[in-house]
């Protein structure tokens, strides 16, 4: 009986806090709107940056994926050496793929490449001066240099060639863009968290008299805190919903219309948007609660 009564009391009080939090959200009117819109606007920005960032990231991987090196073999390599050497390179760390290109295939490719200068290569079919080669791709394009060095020490390898200059320049640019992007992203997320909790703090600061009165009338700290927690959670969730909705519809429209452009493809909405949305929801509700509870604490010392 007694313990049943205790549980009843707990449930009753919890329900009361829930009701109180929701009610307070409504009564604060303008302040609630200001808080929610601060959450909305910051998370919209975060979401926008996340989506753009992931897309640029994917696109840059795509560009980087085209960086390859040519490993030219010495004429002394026998046809039997070819697969063993290939396995050897394949087994190196950081190597993504190794493709064998025979001298005949190489000549064909050179022909295609020189296009206008076909005449130049006339009569070479019978006396092909090109070596056999592997086309090797690194897992991480930035490792190209290191891998090239390692491969060139192998037996039967004449030399390793790739377009050092252009590739390096491009890779550097992309790498910087990506690093900056990550730094900015983190800066943005922290700023968003700070701004949301700052806004919630100010609104609670404006209610400090209310909190003091509650304490003077005999409320415990938890009794005061809980409705604020509920309120902060709701502000976070409501504030995150708008950007999630906006980003989802906006992205869907973009994906549909961008399909016309051939050379750039956007990531598919499903894992991207659902993960971004979840992230925003978690950030919003967590900061909402955290901001509320931390700020309330300051005024409980009476």
């Amino acid at each position, binding site marked *: 009986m007694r313990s049943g009564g205790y549980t009843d*009391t707990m449930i*009753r*009080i919890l329900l*009361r806090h829930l009701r109180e939090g929701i009610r*307070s959200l409504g*009564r*604060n009117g303008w302040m609630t709107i200001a808080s929610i819109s601060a959450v909305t606007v910051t998370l919209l920005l975060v979401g926008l940056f996340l989506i753009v960032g992931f897309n640029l990231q994917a696109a840059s991987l795509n560009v980087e994926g085209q960086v390859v090196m040519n490993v030219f073999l010495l004429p002394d390599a026998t046809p039997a050496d070819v697969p063993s050497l290939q396995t050897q390179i394949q087994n190196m760390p950081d190597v993504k793929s190794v493709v064998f290109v025979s001298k005949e295939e190489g000549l064909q490719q050179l022909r295609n490449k020189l296009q206008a200068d076909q005449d130049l290569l006339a009569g070479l079919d019978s006396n092909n001066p090109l070596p056999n080669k592997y086309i090797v791709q690194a897992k991480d394009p930035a490792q190209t240099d290191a891998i090239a060095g390692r491969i060139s020490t192998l037996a039967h390898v004449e030399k390793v060639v790739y377009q050092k200059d252009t590739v390096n320049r491009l890779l550097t640019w992309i790498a910087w863009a990506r690093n900056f992007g990550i730094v900015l992203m983190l800066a943005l997320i922290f700023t968003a968290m700070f701004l949301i909790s700052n806004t919630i703090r100010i609104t609670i600061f404006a209610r400090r*008299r*209310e909190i003091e*009165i*509650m*304490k*003077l*009338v*005999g*409320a*415990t*700290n938890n*009794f005061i805190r809980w409705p604020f927690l509920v309120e902060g959670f709701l502000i976070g969730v409501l504030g995150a919903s708008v950007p999630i909705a906006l980003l989802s519809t906006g992205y869907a429209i973009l994906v549909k219309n961008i399909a016309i452009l051939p050379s750039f493809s956007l990531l598919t909405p499903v894992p991207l948007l659902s993960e971004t949305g979840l992230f925003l929801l978690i950030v919003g509700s967590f900061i909402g609660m955290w901001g509320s509870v931390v700020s309330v604490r300051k005024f409980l*010392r*009476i």
Partner: protein
Amino acid sequence: MIEMYDVWKTYPNSEPALQGINVKIDKGEFVYVVGPSGAGKSTFIKLMYREEKPSKGTIFINNFNLEKLKERKIPLLRRQIGVVFQDFKLLSRKTAWENVAFALEVIGATGKRIRSRVKETMDMVGLADKADALPSQLSGGQQQRIAIARALVNSPAVIIADEPTGNLDPENSWEIMNLFNQINQRGTTIVMATHNRDIVNTMKKRVIAIEQGHIARDEKRGVYGYDD
């Protein structure tokens, strides 16, 4: 019930507001606290429910030693004391009804009990028809009566009232005083700071006169004094 031993209170950057107060109020007593404006009445009262801490001295309320009282236990003390604040201290975002109900919610009363007690108490102070008004929609005297209702509603062991009739007309003041008298006769201790000479001189009770931070007078069935 209420005991103070050599209690001093000095606010930051001020002269001492209370200087060596010694007082003992028994359970069931009815005490008026009188004195000129700025004498220290409100300070004296604020020490009892721990809105202010004494700079020096020992205070016992209802067997709580306030010096040793842990932060976490303060709400327990305050729930045994119903306070009518001089400036009302109503929650501005809650209706009259909710303000009164709040004192019951904090002690975890059931919805049913809250409804019946709040209704009863609002009737006692004559404001049953203003249940849904916000404090800003009430007249000064109505706000004061809501503050009184909130102090009474959970039947506390002590009622501490700081000028509870300052904004009331004589008729309403007397109704409130009769209410206090009834409650007192049922065993509740009542401490009331007041400037109302009529009330003090008519409804004769113990009078503690505070002047410039000292207890100037403490009489069993006293009068307001300070003739002019």
